[in-house]
């Protein structure tokens, strides 16, 4: 759907006042297992926050505790300042979109969307008007009398979305809502949901294991691993300044090399790679004191931030292994002595050398683009 038609349809529903969600030292144990190991997160009204992490990282458990389907073992969940930790889900007034849509198969689309209004005691006239408006908002007008089984996956997820916003909840939770859709449709729905959220103003907490989805949609991303938040930040923060090695390798592609500290400059550390090359990298956290010379650190650099040079211009000498043509870019796997292999991504349109397999190349990068941990 085009942006113009979305704007037209958005006038159907008044903006929602987003709720503030505060997760305060939340811990969740299942027997001896710890699913969530102490999470703090403040979410502003109207913010779109993604909980991103591998499976088993505790992101879904955290969402279930916000929804009220699970109770925190320790800590509290607050919505607009009120502690809702022990409030049952049906009284929290939260919208929820499930991965498998969770539409009621025995109800028509309009009955599905009107269900929350019915639970809230709205009159039949109100229900019909508001549910029809919500269906129109997601572009499914004219299908009111159909059953969910007659719809495609994408359409079903739109109905689920309409059902979750029709009662204008201040907080909307989404549990991998696009996980069951194919790639093309998923990308379109990402943009659509993002626009819808931006126009409606509801706070959205969105669980995903797909980093592209998180980067595309979220105002802020909380990267989770082993029940903890590794880093919270804007997509740019996470990509440009990953706080640790986990985030650096989880968000986007990254090259990780071992190196030894041999000195420090004003804003960069001087490192020696295993093959003997001396390079410069920026400490990931500016406040970190410079480790003693000889200490081993990790250096992270993105494939597209490495530049191929003519001999003599570069810092690091390597041998070209595989070369992969990926449409918009060329991907080189370059062996740099004993220090390991680096992936280098070069835009097809860029100037510079085009080495082939077995050639010797020289690499360089800006110290600001290499991060040391």
């Amino acid at each position: 759907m085009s942006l113009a038609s979305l704007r037209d349809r958005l006038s159907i529903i008044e903006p929602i006042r987003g709720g503030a969600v505060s997760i305060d030292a939340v811990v969740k144990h299942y027997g001896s297992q710890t699913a969530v190991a102490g999470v703090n997160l403040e979410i502003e009204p109207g913010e779109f926050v993604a909980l991103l992490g591998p499976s088993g990282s505790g992101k879904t458990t955290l969402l279930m505790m916000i929804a009220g389907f699970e109770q925190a073992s320790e800590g509290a969940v607050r919505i607009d300042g009120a502690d809702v930790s022990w409030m049952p889900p049906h009284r929290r007034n939260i919208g929820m979109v499930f991965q498998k849509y969770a539409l009621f198969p025995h109800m028509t689309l309009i009955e599905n969307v009107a269900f929350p209004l019915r639970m809230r005691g709205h009159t039949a006239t109100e229900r019909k008007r508001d549910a029809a408006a919500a269906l129109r908002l997601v572009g499914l007008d004219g299908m009111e009398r159909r059953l969910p089984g007659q719809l495609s996956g994408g359409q079903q997820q739109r109905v689920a979305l309409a059902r979750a916003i029709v009662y204008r909840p201040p907080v909307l939770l989404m549990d991998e809502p696009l996980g069951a859709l194919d790639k093309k449709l998923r990308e379109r729905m990402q943009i659509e949901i993002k626009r819808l959220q931006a126009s409606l103003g509801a706070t959205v907490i969105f669980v995903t294991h797909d980093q592209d989805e998180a980067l595309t949609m979220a105002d802020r991303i909380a990267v989770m691993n082993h029940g903890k938040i590794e880093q919270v930040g804007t997509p740019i923060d996470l990509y440009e300044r990953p706080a640790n090695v986990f985030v650096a390798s989880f968000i986007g592609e990254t090259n990780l090399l071992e190196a030894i500290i041999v000195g420090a400059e004003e804003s960069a550390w001087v490192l020696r790679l295993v093959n003997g090359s001396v390079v410069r990298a920026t400490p990931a956290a500016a406040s970190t004191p410079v480790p003693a010379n000889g200490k081993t650190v990790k250096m992270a650099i993105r494939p597209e931030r490495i530049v191929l040079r003519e001999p003599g211009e570069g810092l690091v000498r390597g041998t070209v292994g595989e070369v992969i043509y990926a449409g918009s870019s060329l991907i080189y796997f370059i062996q740099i002595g004993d220090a390991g292999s680096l992936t280098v991504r070069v835009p097809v349109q860029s100037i510079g050398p085009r080495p082939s397999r077995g050639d010797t190349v020289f690499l360089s990068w800006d110290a600001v683009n290499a991060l040391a941990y």
Partner: protein
Amino acid sequence: MEAIASAAPAKDASIGRRVALLMRNSKGFPIPLAVAMVAPLLIGLAVAFVQPVGQLLATSLWHPDFTLVEYQRIGATPLYFRIIARTFLLATTVTVAALLLGYPVALFLARLSGWRLTVATACIMLPLWTSVLVRSYSWIVILQRNGLLNTFLQWLGVINAPLPLLYNELAVVVAMTHVLLPYMILPIWAALRAMPRDLPLAAESLGANGPRVFWHVVLPLSMPGVASGTLMVFILALGFYVTPALVGGPRTLMLATLIGQQTIELLNWPFAGALAAVLLVTTLVLVAAFNRFLGLDKKAAS
């Protein structure tokens, strides 16, 4: 000549392909093989079921000339009408009791997992593997004049003299409900297990409390299970022989028992055939009506 000779094998091949296609149904399973596999069952059914039942029904109409006298006898005797009515009333009561008792059990089972599920499944299945005779006799042990229940109630001091618990309609209903309960629980349980776990959660998140989640989501989606359970228990109860014969008294004569008497004791086969025909036709009509009524719900749930 050469042209014809070379064309013939090609034609053969295409015929062969067509035959091969005809041999397969939509699932790619050869039809002759399928027929061969069901044939023993079909022959067995024909010999042991269709033929005798057909003959019994035929006997009721031709002995040896066509006559409706047996059916007129059923219509003219209030006793037989009362037995038929009682049979349907008892079957309905048993079905309702099994539904009311079985649904909560199925609901409870659907929430279990792991070893608890194994134990609970065994508890449901074990009675099914026990002889109906044994289960009916156990009710005699419990309900008879000096049985467990009477002794217990007298020990409690609730009653002074033993209650006549056995050989009445209540005893028949209790025992039959017990015997037929698994047939109600299993299909409902299957329907509940097939329901995605997300659905009740979604309903809750949308503002429905426990009872409303049940009423608006869980119950409607379990209706196919309720329908098959109800139908199965009702049909089984209609033709039930052993339990009513054992725990029921002379005043709780049911249709199956009456048919048994006519064939085994009185050797009045034509009249037994007429009774069987009445039972069969009434059952078929009820089942058809029931299917029509619940078929609509089933369609909506799928």
